[in-house]
């Protein structure tokens, strides 16, 4: 039986100030500000800690933001947190990374990372193997309750490229994009983290005790214009390159002594264009399912993250005065054409 449906909300677009657009600290400040907005994109009120509104905090090193972390309005027994992190200079210690990602600190400066943690309590340090002390469920305190960091963007930001932060949140997950200018065809660095996988099962072999699976997915590079048709792009774990798309989940502890971070990929590969509507022009939304990249058993369904026709990121589809959902796409150019629309996800409202 499926988990209760999530309701994605869209935050206001954050315009990255020129003064802070060339460092990851500036990007992290923007993420913090975005997730502390008092309104949503449509000016409706956003009250931190209620409905879908996450609570986010930040941590400084000297005067530079190095980590932005938060927790959802409703905490389950798994006590999850999502953390964004990065530093202008190389950290002294290599943080825990997701499988197949960076192995030296020298490559880390100005890279934006994202991770998800379960059993999360008090924040320690983003370079600690356990980013948080144990939370509401103190049974597991090892580093294995943290996914490790996955690269949202794998190069340093510049004031001429990264222009906007798009962000969405729902009761149990968050999503962001760093939108770049048309000089890169309007691409976007992308990341989603939280309880985004529904195993469609209550078995403790398939799900955590709260019925969910916790995951982080990032693009590394700007997501390919056809990432839904690829097997090594966004929403598919790339085992070859340390800096590209990563997609992992924390497997339920019943499978192993402690939770294990395992790579994922989509079960489906889809060629979808902007013409993929019904004959009468209706917009389809189809489920995305994921499998373990190695074993390769079925893992679950992405929760209210569906594939839809190719369009652009940052749009909201409405029916009368009701939001149907929000578009999370590979392209976010301000001009709309065949070459500036790409694979797109539909975050259901």
């Amino acid at each position: 039986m499926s988990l209760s449906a999530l309701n994605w909300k869209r935050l206001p677009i954050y315009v990255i100030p020129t003064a802070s657009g060339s460092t990851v600290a500036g990007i992290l400040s923007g993420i913090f500000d975005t997730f502390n907005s008092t309104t949503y994109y449509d000016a409706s009120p956003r009250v931190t800690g209620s409905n879908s509104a996450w609570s986010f905090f930040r941590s400084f090193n000297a005067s530079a933001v190095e980590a932005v972390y938060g927790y959802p309005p409703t905490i389950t027994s798994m006590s999850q947190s999502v953390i964004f992190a990065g530093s202008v200079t190389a950290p002294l210690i290599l943080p825990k990374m997701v499988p197949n990602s960076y192995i030296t600190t020298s490559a880390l400066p100005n890279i934006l990372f994202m991770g998800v943690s379960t059993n999360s309590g008090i924040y320690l340090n983003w370079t600690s193997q356990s980013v948080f002390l144990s939370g509401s469920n103190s049974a597991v305190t090892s580093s294995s309750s943290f996914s490790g960091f996955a690269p949202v963007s794998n190069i340093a930001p510049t004031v001429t490229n990264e222009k906007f932060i798009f962000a969405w949140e729902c009761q149990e997950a968050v999503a962001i994009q760093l939108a770049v200018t048309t000089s890169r065809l309007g691409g976007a660095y992308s990341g989603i983290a939280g309880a985004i996988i529904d195993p469609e099962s209550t078995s403790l072999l398939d799900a955590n005790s709260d019925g969910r699976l916790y995951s982080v997915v990032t693009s590394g590079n700007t997501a390919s214009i056809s990432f839904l048709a690829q097997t090594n792009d966004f929403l598919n774990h790339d085992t070859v390159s340390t800096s590209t798309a990563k997609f992992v989940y924390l497997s339920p502890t019943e499978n192993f002594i402690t939770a294990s971070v395992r790579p994922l990929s989509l079960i489906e590969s889809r060629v979808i264009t902007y013409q993929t509507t019904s004959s009468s022009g209706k917009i389809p939304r189809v489920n995305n399912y994921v499998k373990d990249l190695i074993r390769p058993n079925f893992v679950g369904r992405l929760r209210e993250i569906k594939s839809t026709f190719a369009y652009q990121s940052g749009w909201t589809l409405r029916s009368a005065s009701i939001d149907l959902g929000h578009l999370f796409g590979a392209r976010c150019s301000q001009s709309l054409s065949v070459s500036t629309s790409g694979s797109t996800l539909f975050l259901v409202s």
Partner: protein
Amino acid sequence: MALVRNTWKFLPPYTVPIVSQSRVEGLLDGIFFLFNTSSYADGSARVTGSGVAWSFYKTSSVDSGSVLGPTAVVYGYPATMSVISQSVIFAGSASAPTITLPSMTTNASFVANALYVAVQKQANWSQYKSWLSGSIFNSGSSGVNTGSLARTGSGFAPIIGASVSGIGIINAWECGDSVAIACHTTSSTATATALSFAGIAGGFIDPESTDTTFDSEPDGRLYAVATSGVVISLTFLGSTTDFLNHNATAASSKLVFIQPGTDNKITLNLLETRTLTYLTTSNRGSLISFPLYVKDINNRFIGRLREIEAIRNSVSGYVLRTSSSDLGYVIGASNAAAANAVMLTAI
């Protein structure tokens, strides 16, 4: 909004007599026999015309008085007719008809001793004309099948696109709006080789839309025919040119639907490709099924296959059960080895 769920039923496997294994009329006789059985594979009663039990008839190309020639056509209609009044027609003949060839579906051509299937809208089952006629039946329940509104149907698509040879077993399934068959070769020792042909016909596409002008027929359905043509690849769900995808090669797989309110045949492909294996279960081992969606050549979304869902690699002809209830039935690439397969759901 989705249509009412179809409930598939499995007919008893039919063993083709040795003398008929390489003769299309033998296979057609087998299909006729299957769809006239009085019980399902689980022994439950099957009453033609009730539940989901289709009514099927057969005829030959050359009937002379009371003397019936070799079976050339097996046609039937569902237990409950919608306003579209569909019929499904299986056909084939040992030699090419001399006067005219039957209407073939897009990219298909007639081959002697091959096995074909078609679906026709507005078909009056009691007024069968000829399988070689543009319109195989006179008009059906709506009475509209003449002049510019004539409906010739999907055209024949090849279940077996070459002269049939060595077909040992036929499986058949039926539901309220569709029928499906699989023909398995007798090469039972080749356990890792694709062995099966298949075909599905009827109202098996749900456009998931209430628009009855562009998206669906007036009854909310779309009528289609899907065939393999050649033996189904062991990994056909990862291919764009195999079963459940339209292939432009004449004898290969076909997937065509009839555009609502017209006589146009539109070719289709699955919206997604999937790499599925025997291991594609949950950690716990639960069976997982994935809906299948189809699009046209312009990537336009057409609909969802009705209660035809992708599953882990399985053996064609198997029944999936929980406790004493059938969950569904497997139709796939082989009846001798676990390979790509779809489940016809029974619940």
